[in-house]
């Protein structure tokens, strides 16, 4: 695993804030000491297994291990999760999360509810997760599904899509990579969970895109 010195990140200065874009598929928001992530889909493999589909167990453990490393590296005060934190109904992996959560009781977790976040409110409160329909901090707005138009806030962060871009070049070369996508009004985070797919976006000129290439972050436009 990489240490802090070689950590691949890109500090993106945007809307008067410092956004550390991390190859682990999260953003560290310097001014707020917050880690922003989206689409963890915790409990997804358990949900499949419960239904008789033998996908490997242990995917969530790896995802949470990666999150744990980010927490110990950046020492954030809060996690902002832009939706789809859990994949489906309550299952035993949620219990695993509860144990994991016990290591970081001092960290506040804000969850902006996504379409997959369908568990009862009391389960979230047992896990000490504060849920929101939307969340706004320093006029930065967080909502699960990306908005098309200007909604009046300084900027908006979303998830939901699991964005990727396709890069094509001469001699018919083609690459498809997950990305951080900064549109005019709305930024879209890559999916944090490993058991998630990708959706290709078609960036317009003037938008900023950072692809995640293995352990590094590269700005493509």
């Amino acid at each position, binding site marked *: 695993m990489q240490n802090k010195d070689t950590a691949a990140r890109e500090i993106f200065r945007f809307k008067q804030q410092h956004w550390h874009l991390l190859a682990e598929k999260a953003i560290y928001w310097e001014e707020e000491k917050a880690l922003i992530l989206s689409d963890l889909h915790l409990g997804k493999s358990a949900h499949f297994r419960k239904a008789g*589909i033998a996908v*490997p167990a242990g995917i969530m453990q790896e995802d949470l291990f990666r999150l744990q490393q980010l927490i110990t590296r950046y020492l954030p005060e809060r996690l902002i999760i832009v939706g789809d934190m859990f994949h489906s109904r309550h299952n035993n992996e949620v219990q695993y999360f509860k144990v994991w959560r016990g290591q970081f009781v001092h960290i506040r977790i804000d969850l902006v509810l996504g379409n997959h976040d369908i568990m009862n409110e009391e389960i979230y409160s047992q896990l000490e997760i504060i849920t929101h329909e939307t969340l706004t901090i320093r006029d930065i707005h967080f909502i699960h599904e990306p908005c098309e138009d200007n909604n009046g806030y300084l900027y908006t962060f979303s998830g939901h899509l699991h964005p990727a871009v396709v890069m094509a070049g001469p001699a*018919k070369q083609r*690459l498809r990579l997950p990305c951080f996508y900064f549109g005019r009004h709305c930024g879209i985070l890559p999916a944090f969970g490993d058991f998630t797919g990708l959706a290709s976006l078609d960036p317009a000129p003037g938008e900023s895109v950072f692809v995640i290439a293995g352990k590094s972050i590269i700005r493509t436009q």
Partner: protein
Amino acid sequence: MQQHSRGWKVVTGWLADKGLQPFTFQEDAWQAYLQGRSGIVNAPTGFGKTFSLFLGAVIAWIDAHPKDYHKKSRNGLQLMWITPLRALAKDLGRAMEEVLRELDIAWEVGIRSGDTPLATRAKQKQQMPEVLIITPESLHLLLAQKEYPAVFKHLHTVVTDEWHELLGSKRGVMVELALSRLRGLRPELKVWGISATIGNLEEALEVLLGPYHQNGLIIRANLKKNIALQSVIPNEIENYPWAGHLGIRMLPQALPIIEDSQTTLIFTNTRSQSEIWYQSLLKYDPMLAGALALHHGSIDMELRIWVEEALHNGILKAVVCTASLDLGVDFRPVDAVIQVGSPKGVARFLQRAGRSGHQPGAVSRIFFLPTHALELVEAAALKAAMEQDLIESRMPVLLAYDVLLQYLMTLAVSDGFYAPEIYEEVRKTFCYQDLTPDEWQWILAFLTTGGEALGSYDEFRKLERQGDHYYCKSRMLAMRHRLHIGTIVSDAMLKVKFMSGGYVGVIEESFISRLSPGDSFTLAGRNLEFVLIKDMTVLVRKSNAKRTIVPSYMGGRIPLSSNLGRMLREKFNEALSRRTKDPELIALQPLFSRQEELSHIPKANELLIEKITTKDGYHLFVYPFEGRLVHEVMAALLAYRISRIQPITFSIAMNDYGFELLSDQPIPLTAENAKQLFSTDNLLTELQTSVNATEMARRKFRDIAVIAGLIFQGYPGKHKANRHLQSSASLLFNVFKDYDPQNLLLKQAFNEAFFYQMEEARLRETLERIAESRIVITEPDKLTPFCFPIKVDSLRDTMTSEKLEDRIKKLIAVNG
């Protein structure tokens, strides 16, 4: 003396009354059958191969009940007839019923396939007919029913029709497994196969009966089908396209064939091609309206049945079809077949030719219509291969863990199974003869505990276990499984209906998802406007649009078989020697002259390489004439070896004649290093590094994941079971690779990629041949007739030795 048995006399007497005399092979088959043996009947279509076994069973029945064979009814299932195609079932049933009626035997003939109505199924459950014609999938569905052994209590014979079609596919494995269970229930079961000629008939017998069989035999008809192959040669070869795959430009030359024949089948290689041909024929000759039909797998079942009936009755002039009409249906009025584009193999070509002139002794007329100029060489190669009886072998599938998982689930949802008993049965099949006890344990664990990596928090649920007894308790899982039985994996299909009602057919979800409301597309020969999707149904209205989109259906391209590949190379050599008598090759002379002028024509002992620069980049074309499969691997190998000279990225394309490496920088292949780049040194190691095994395995994994029950396919008319259980095969492949690399399904994907796709032995032979050859490198300033069809191919692979970061930076730089 068997000849004098009561049944024998009744049957031969009945035939004689019709003025018929049995063929020797039919009598041989009856004889063997009456002795209680199993085996394979090998005969061309149109010579009564069905009767060679069906009448055997009838004779045995009369012999067993000489007094009351007329009257005895409700005897339970006696004879099961497995057929790969639903279209065959009706036809077979009709022929059998006719026999039974004329002999006044009170047997019933039933059909069981995906098309069988629920009411009929229920009736069959009450009282099974004596003869059941069934598809492999429906047979497994029978095994998924509670108390299924009762159904087979009186079963004494199973016949597998068109065994050569099933062999070599996972559907064949389904047959092997079902037979293993039936033999377990009925140890005296007679098992017969009917097969066209293939290169490995002995092996086909072994697969059908299992490697431990004792008394199997092959009965050969030794009757040769008379086939007349004629190529349709473009009137102006100079102007005929160098590339393409539709062949529409040849349509005017196809019309006289249709006119001069009673009924013509026009075989195309894809469904989209058949749609386009159907539309174009109607446009070109409006008189065909009403007498022309379209038949492919996406067309509404009722319409397909109507087409088949109409073919029987001779009211159609022509039918444009795909492999959907490949198999032995007996359409007597058909007296001509047009094959559009390469059939890719001798066996398939013979099969299609056999659709015409179905009567014994009749000549099968088949016309080969090339879709691009070079394909004419294939016609010449086919002709030569047919003369020399060079028929392909069908390689049986080995250790298909996915099918085994599905089969065990099938048994589990019915009465459950006892693991030691089923293990013994499974081990006696050809496919699983090398299954190890460890693998068996893994398979059982996969179904009960969901594989390794267990923790106390795991909630995996599929099968329960009590001692050695495995069963499925969940009704929901059982229902889902029954809907999923089968090994034909397709894209999720949606029903297509008119707004005003009326069913058109089914279409791939991935196609429709690319359309916007208002777009027009073509299905079942109709121009349709897409209105909306509702409840998994695509609603459409009639479209008057001039231009419509024709769905390009998924589905692999068929690679050239090695037999045809070898013949093709010989024919190229013959053509290039300019001493040929084949009309196809003579017609191609202008094209060869152009090739000679621009580049070079390789002789038998030469390998031609062309280096061409276009606005797309730097191209390297190599022509081994070895067929697509070998070229794919060889291209990757060459790309890998060049990429070790300097960091470079290639996109790779290939066809049956040669392959292309395309790069954004000059390719460092020279007269000096060429020989070394094609050497056999370190072949195996370099192959494993060079061929993108992971990508190849990923492609194979899709089918495996569906068959093994990891992915739910959509069903027409059914809501998706649970949105939270959707995932793509590619995503599953990734998580298995990262989190469970020992998974047998993953191993199977790599095996399928390596052993079926990479033909290492063929590649080695090719490289050895090249080592003896002279390598000719030309640098034409224009694209040549040889390279053109490869260059326009859009399906491409990638091979790179550049760092990911460097590639991205380059792409950014280029795109500004």
